């Protein structure tokens, strides 16, 4: 039996709830009758009394079984309602969202997209292509939510039917004689501690391998009780699951951080209390504690910071959002480069992200006061060390992870917007510094939903032109005077070379065209995010989606001119 959109939308869950509550009242009534049974033969003895007591015992046993089954029916139906209600609400939401764009949901959750009327395309907004792209996006969002809702509803249906079959086991057969042909196949019920009726509304599995949009849709159709249970049971998984809202990830990661910090302290105390000090184990435990303390320190520096990724394996991975990444109109993800790790560098990367956010917020207030900005300090990949840097493999892995992170942010936002149209769409900028720009380059090859890309002090990207990374005009480079790394071209073409096609952000200082204030120059490889620099101000302009406010320079620094000359000779 396939659960379709019509079936779920047709469920009168209020009626089921009323029936379930009535069944629980009936069960109480049966329990009362059952409890009175032994009293009927009280203070009666003799042979006949013995026989009567035997009959009454049988009656009590039958009533007790009835009470169990009727009570279970009530509980299971209520649990089914708990699981089906968010799925039905999500289908309604997806249907409304699709209908508003002239689309409709098919019974299997797919979205029918009628052809675009060319007359309805507004040339100023990018024309027909932009309209089609927007419609494709709407269809994808509505389809993802509908699919998640149908999957959840099918799981609840199957699990509830199976549980009911088991609950009624042993009852006398009715007219249909048995459950033959009706017994559903058990879905892989979540192997957590939830049992009995509660297992019905728990998801069958956590979708590790799904896209950010599908994860966001999955999360949104879970009942509140299931979300709370998952957060309590598996915070380590939820905290790193791209597509789950940043606020939820923060809650999960802080729980993990608190728990693991306490465990690390205990372990260290125990190791240090031993007669013979196990140096190796102490060092490992101390390193872990240092990492956890570093993360905690970064969070404590500002209550607005949110721990959106925490992975404690090896040297650890962490990402800290500054501002509300779930609702901000503009989000920039700052990706650091070589030799950056959580323990030693999360604070520095967070400070860079904080300065970018301050600059972007300040600029936004001048041109679009309602626009909000969040930035993310993202050490979500194992950055290269000097020994691993030649391979570029870590940048590839980083790119894959970064793309998934971007899809998660965007997917979560899109699903959220279907219910709350007041939430702005996400304008996402990926800002890669040094080796981080290599990771950003790899990320963009899989076309994550990033609107703009900023490559700072880049030692090369695995692309021949800006067009391979993002649509024309959306790739920006920054190269400060004296930044030797930016001319290395180790990992592919130098994005600041003339023919690459990126737009060169000016970094050598000048006056702010909007305010007239003096902007400082960034020097060398590490000042791109310094407060008051032309560099951070220009990255901020891109971050808030106002690149026309940025200042643009000559394409190349001295190193690039030499390399361009060589390039020309070779060609």
């Amino acid at each position, binding site marked *: 039996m396939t659960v379709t959109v019509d079936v779920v939308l047709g469920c009168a869950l209020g009626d089921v709830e009323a029936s379930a509550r009535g069944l629980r009242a009936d069960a109480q009534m049966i329990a009362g009758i059952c409890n*009175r049974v032994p009293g009927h033969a009280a203070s009666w003895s*003799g042979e006949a009394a013995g026989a009567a007591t035997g009959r009454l015992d049988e009656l009590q046993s*039958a009533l007790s079984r009835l009470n169990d089954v009727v009570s279970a029916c009530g509980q299971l139906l209520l649990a089914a309602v708990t699981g089906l209600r968010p799925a039905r609400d999500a289908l309604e939401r997806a249907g409304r969202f699709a209908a508003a764009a002239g689309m409709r949901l098919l019974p299997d959750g797919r979205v029918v997209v009628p052809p675009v009327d060319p007359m309805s395309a507004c040339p100023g907004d990018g024309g027909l292509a932009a309209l089609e792209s927007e419609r494709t996006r709407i269809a994808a969002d509505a389809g993802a939510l509908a699919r998640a809702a149908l999957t959840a509803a099918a799981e609840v249906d199957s699990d509830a039917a199976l549980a009911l079959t088991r609950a009624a086991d042993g009852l006398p057969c009715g007219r249909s004689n048995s*459950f033959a042909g009706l017994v559903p196949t058990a879905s892989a019920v979540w192997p957590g501690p939830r049992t009995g009726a509660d297992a019905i509304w728990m998801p069958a599995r956590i979708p590790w391998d799904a896209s950010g949009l599908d994860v966001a849709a999955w999360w949104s159709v879970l009942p509140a009780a299931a979300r709370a249970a998952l957060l309590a049971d598996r915070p380590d998984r939820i905290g790193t699951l791209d597509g789950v809202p940043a606020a939820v990830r923060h809650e999960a990661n802080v729980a993990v951080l608190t728990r693991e910090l306490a465990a690390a302290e205990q372990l260290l105390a125990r190791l240090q209390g031993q007669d013979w000090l196990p140096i190796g184990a102490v060092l490992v435990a101390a390193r872990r504690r240092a990492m956890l303390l570093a993360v905690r320190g970064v969070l404590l520096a500002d209550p607005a910071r949110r721990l959106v990724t925490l992975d404690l394996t090896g040297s650890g991975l962490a990402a800290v959002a500054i501002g509300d990444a779930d609702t901000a109109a503009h989000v920039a993800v700052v990706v650091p480069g070589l030799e950056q790790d959580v323990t030693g560098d999360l604070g520095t990367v967070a400070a860079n992200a904080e300065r970018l956010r301050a600059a972007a917020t300040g600029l936004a207030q001048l041109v679009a006061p309602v626009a909000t900005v969040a930035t993310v300090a993202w050490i979500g990949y194992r950055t290269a060390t000097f020994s691993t840097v030649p391979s570029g493999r870590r940048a590839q892995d980083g790119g894959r992870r970064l793309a998934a992170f971007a899809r998660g942010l965007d997917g979560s936002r899109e699903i959220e917007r279907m219910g709350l149209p007041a939430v702005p769409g996400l304008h996402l900028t990926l800002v890669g510094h040094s080796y981080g720009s290599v990771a950003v380059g790899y990320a963009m090859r899989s076309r994550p939903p990033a609107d703009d890309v900023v490559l700072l002090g880049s030692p090369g990207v695995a692309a021949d032109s800006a067009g391979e990374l993002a649509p024309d005009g959306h790739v920006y480079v920054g190269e400060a005077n004296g930044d030797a790394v930016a001319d290395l071209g180790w990992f592919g073409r130098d994005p600041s070379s003339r023919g690459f096609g990126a737009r060169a952000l000016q970094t050598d200082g000048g006056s702010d065209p909007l305010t007239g204030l003096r902007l400082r120059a960034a020097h060398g490889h590490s000042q791109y995010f310094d407060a008051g620099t032309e560099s951070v101000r220009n990255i901020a302009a891109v971050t808030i989606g106002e690149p026309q406010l940025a200042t643009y320079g000559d394409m190349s620094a001295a190193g690039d001119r030499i390399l361009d000359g060589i390039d020309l000779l070779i060609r």
Partner: protein
Amino acid sequence: MRISVQPAQLDAAAARLAADAACLDALLVVARLEAAAVAVAGTQLAATVRVTAERLHAALFQARLQIAACSGALNAAAEHYELTDRQAMRGQGPA
């Protein structure tokens, strides 16, 4: 064998059982399940709820029969004890 019960007590027990049987009759278990099945029409759950309703209907009927049998037996015992009590009072034998 000595009887340690008054026939009136057995009658009262039989009456209480009859009242419980009436309560059982008044339960809306089956109707509620059928309403739930209609409310989730088209699902596996609906089909399973229907079968469960039938089985509960049968189980309730059996319980009702058991109550009726117990109630009847208590009434019969009460009658029997009343009779033997009267016979004993008339000197026709021990109760």
